[in-house]
């Protein structure tokens, strides 16, 4: 039995269906990528796992428990943490306060100060900026806060939505290194990316989404050399 398993879900925003019969699974300790072009349904998949959306059909099983009908705050309590696209920091709160909000759930709150120290070790830059308002940070620093905020929640599964979006290549590299480090610490990772080279190079397995359908999946290194990937990614 897989650690987190998504069985044949259909998801719609109002009348517009975005995911069609999507199934995927992830094993404990794995780094799994979901790749695909704009509008393929990657973000929708993550939002459905984190409870912001609910599937019209199908199920999501985590640790042998059905979680697809739970609200987001219950999913967070289970340890599935979503680092959203576009960072979504609280702009009028300091770096420290943003990190603290990450540890809002009952599993993480009491350990928040220790966890924060670990995050400052991973991203020393944030320690210098701890009192600064999140809205005034640079793009790379914001992404560090977003990742740090995810870690503050003491995740079992950590899901990243486009962590490289809008970052300079050199910062993308260090961001991917940080994600690899997080994976090595035993946290299961789901990575959604348009930057396929960056994401596949640190992933074990990957799924390719195209217009709401899973069209391909397999070993990340093999997929990287697959010609059909270009088709999915460019949407042609």
């Amino acid at each position, binding site marked *: 039995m897989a650690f987190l398993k998504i069985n044949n879900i259909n998801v719609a925003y109002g009348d517009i269906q975005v995911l069609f019969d999507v199934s995927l699974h992830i094993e404990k300790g794995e780094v799994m990528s979901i790749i695909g072009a704009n509008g393929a349904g990657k973000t929708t998949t993550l939002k459905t796992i984190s409870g912001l959306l609910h599937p019209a059909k199908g199920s999501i099983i985590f640790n042998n428990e059905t979680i697809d009908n739970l609200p987001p705050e219950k999913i967070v*309590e289970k340890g599935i943490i979503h680092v959203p696209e576009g960072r979504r920091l609280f*702009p*009028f709160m300091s770096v420290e306060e943003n990190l603290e909000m990450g540890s809002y759930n009952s599993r993480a709150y009491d350990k928040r100060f220790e966890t924060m120290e670990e995050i400052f070790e991973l991203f020393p830059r944030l320690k210098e900026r701890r009192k600064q308002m999140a809205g005034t940070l640079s793009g790379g620093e914001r992404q560090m806060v977003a990742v740090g905020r995810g870690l503050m929640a003491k995740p079992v599964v950590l899901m990243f939505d486009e962590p490289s979006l809008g970052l300079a290549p050199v910062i993308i590299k260090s961001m991917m290194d940080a994600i690899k480090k997080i994976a090595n610490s035993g946290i299961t990772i789901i990575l959604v990316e348009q930057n396929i080279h960056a994401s596949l190079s640190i992933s074990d397995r990957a799924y390719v989404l195209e217009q709401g359908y899973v069209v391909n999946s397999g070993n990340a290194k093999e997929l990287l050399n697959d010609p059909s990937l270009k088709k999915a990614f460019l949407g042609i």
Partner: protein
Amino acid sequence: MGSAILNGILMGSIYGLTAIGLTLIFGVLKVINFAQGAFLMLGLFSTYWFVELTGANPYLALIFVVPFTYFTGYYTQKFLIKPVFESEKDVREPIGVIIVTTGIWYMLDNLALMLFGAEYRTINVPSLSEAISFFGLYAPLSKIIGFFISITIAGALFWFLKYSKMGKAIRATSQDREAASLMGINQYKIYNVTFGIGIAICGIAGTVLLPFYYVYPTAGMHLDILDFVIVVLGGLGSIPGALVGGLIIGLIESVGSQFISYSWTIEIIYLLFLVILFVKPEGLFGVKGEF
């Protein structure tokens, strides 16, 4: 003149208090609560009946009024407003909710009319209406006490939002509700608590006002409209803005009526309101999402 300024500041702080509830609810729920004045009336009436039935000092009524109005607000949001929110999930400023609050306003006003009748009621506490000398300036004791209560409540609320876990969660929700729910914050619980606090502040304002004010079913109306002016003047969603806006309105009213008739001071207030809307529509302290 000096006494007029002092009275303006004292009254302005109390106006500010009534506006804080409105601005807090708007800042978090992104909804104008049209029932705010009706809840103020509820605060006035519950203080009135507390004093009438127990004969106690009106400020003692707070021990009853604060929990009563808090839970009224909490459950109003939970049972009447939340269902509408859920059906308008993806709308940033849900119009349906505004209409619900308008319905609550009419319901409360008419409920009070039905239960208590239309007459103006007041409590008579002579010791509170006595003028007290304050560095050679004179103001009634009730307004001086009102000023200190208002400032204390504003300070306490500021501290709560800045440092407590719940307060931080309220701020996070006001800044990005979807991101807040990804932190494990139950959005609707935050709405319940925020609405409860906003209405409890209304209740406190009712207790503070009653010693020098009348209570009748539409007593909240005048202050309600004034509150909208204050909140827009100070910046929607800003708590310091609500206090400063209240002080400005209080000063205009009190100092202005030294020179011109009271109804003209109201004219000036609304004229100022229009000017602010033209020149600085976000208000004096208007930064979205910041308390």
